[in-house]
């Protein structure tokens, strides 16, 4: 199973890493946000700004790439051989998610480059928090957005399944502003997703924020796994079509 996951991830990355759509999703949208943000808070690039902007790119890229990957599997009808194999669909879909997470990492150095060229870099830039925060954010984003895989495979896809998702998750992830700056009613909801805790740590938080984030990643991953197992079951029992 691990070998299938690894290979599915590798194939996803090698066939899609340089896809124009993927690169555009990972780099263009976050840079636009950066321009807006900088107009309200001018200054050199800080780690939390760099990670937050990269997080927008990761979120957008994971959603776009997941939609693309699952749609292609359905168009190519490659999910049936997987469903009929001993490991079922799970290793293939988890592998695709892992590959998508790796693809989304393009946002981290990509957006930093644009930010630094535009506004320079803060003299006390904390490279460790930028790198560790960025890596954790990619994992956290993929774990949360991974739930979308179930819906993309279970139902005929429509733009409504992904439109708006990026905006909602940008807000709940506290990518642009700290959790405390969010509306009071939104703050407790935002703490339910791991990106908020990763961003809190990037903004100078302590280790417990990371541990909470990792715990939430485990919970979200378990839910993704359970949803894919459920999908396998209903595909076999109810003959849910895994194709277009």
């Amino acid at each position, binding site marked *: 199973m691990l070998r299938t996951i690894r290979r599915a991830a590798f194939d996803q990355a090698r066939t899609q890493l340089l896809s124009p759509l993927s690169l555009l999703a990972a780099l263009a949208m976050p840079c636009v946000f950066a321009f807006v943000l900088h107009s309200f808070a001018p200054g050199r690039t800080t780690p939390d700004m760099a990670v937050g902007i990269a997080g927008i790119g990761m979120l957008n890229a994971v959603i776009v790439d997941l939609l693309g990957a699952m749609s292609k599997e359905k168009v190519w*009808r490659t999910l049936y051989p997987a469903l009929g194999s001993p490991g079922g669909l799970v290793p293939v879909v988890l592998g695709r998610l892992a590959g998508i997470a790796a693809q989304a990492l393009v946002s981290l150095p990509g957006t930093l480059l644009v930010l630094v060229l535009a506004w320079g870099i803060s003299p006390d830039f904390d490279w460790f928090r930028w790198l560790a925060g960025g890596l954790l954010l990619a994992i956290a984003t993929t774990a949360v957005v991974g739930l979308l895989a179930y819906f993309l495979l279970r139902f005929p896809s429509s733009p409504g399944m992904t439109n708006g998702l990026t905006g909602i998750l940008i807000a709940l992830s506290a990518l642009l502003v700290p959790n405390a700056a969010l509306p009071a009613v939104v703050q407790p909801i935002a703490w339910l997703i791991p990106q908020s805790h990763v961003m809190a740590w990037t903004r100078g938080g302590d280790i417990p924020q990371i541990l909470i984030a990792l715990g939430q990643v485990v919970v979200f991953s378990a839910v993704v796994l359970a949803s894919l197992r459920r999908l396998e079951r209903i595909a076999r029992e109810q003959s849910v079509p895994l194709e277009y």
Partner: protein
Amino acid sequence: MISFGPTSDRGVTAHSLRREFRNKGGSPRTAVAGLDLSVEPGQLVSVLGPNGAGKTTIVRMLTGLLRPTSGHATIDGFDVVRERRKAAAACGSSLGGELGLYPRLTALQNLTFFGLMYGVPTRTLDRRARELLDQVELSDRAGEVVRTFSRGMKQRLHLARALIHDPPVLILDEPSAGLDPHSAAAMRTSVRRFADEGHCVLLTTHDMREAEELSERVILVNDGAVRAEATPAELRLGAAQRFGFSIEVIWNDLDIPDDWAGCPGLLDGRTERGTTRLRVTDGGAAVQWVLAEYGDRTASVSVSPPTLEEVFLEMTGAR
């Protein structure tokens, strides 16, 4: 139903296998109604039936893609529901068509990926994939992406994919559909060789010639139930008892006889474009009579029972 002797749990078995679907109104529709079948190791059995007969549903249940509503089935002794993983590991399957492969990966990459899904050890995976590509005559295209392949090449790659983990059981859904005669013949040769090596093969097909040429047994299904199960020869001879034998006489001159009243067991007859076709209850006696009466004017005379296609049309109510 004709008995074929004792069966074992090896190969493929199905007992009272049933599958119902529910339409949008919630009312059930039976796709497969109590199917019984067994395919022994080394046997090649074809399932024939018109569109909507339930063939694909049978294949999907046996390959673990669809759960039966009731009844049970085994692959190499493993229950397809309770021991799904073991049954899946023992079964190579192909749903055919141009899809089911990754078009952006090469033929070799496709095979190795599916090999990993079936647990083929890494140290032997590449060698096994190259062997199979060689067997299906795709070794010279191993490094090319599949989207450039013709339909026939994709069908052969499907077969290689189904065999990547060297399963004891092979289940193929219309393996030669849409292939040109050369590709279809190559596909039949590959499938036959696999059965000759002692593996168990179950295939669905619309191609009567393919079924007759390849199969030890043919199972005719319609409306989700088995209508007949026998060797192709037995099915044809059985139909001859009901519809008679066909006698074809080709004359060596233009003076064609038209008096057939004395032909033993004559059911009907007609002459078109220099060839006379008779339908008789006793083929041997009729041939002897033709030769005795008109031997000096006969270029050739042949006798045959109804074709498998005619049997199929009769069973499915189209005759």
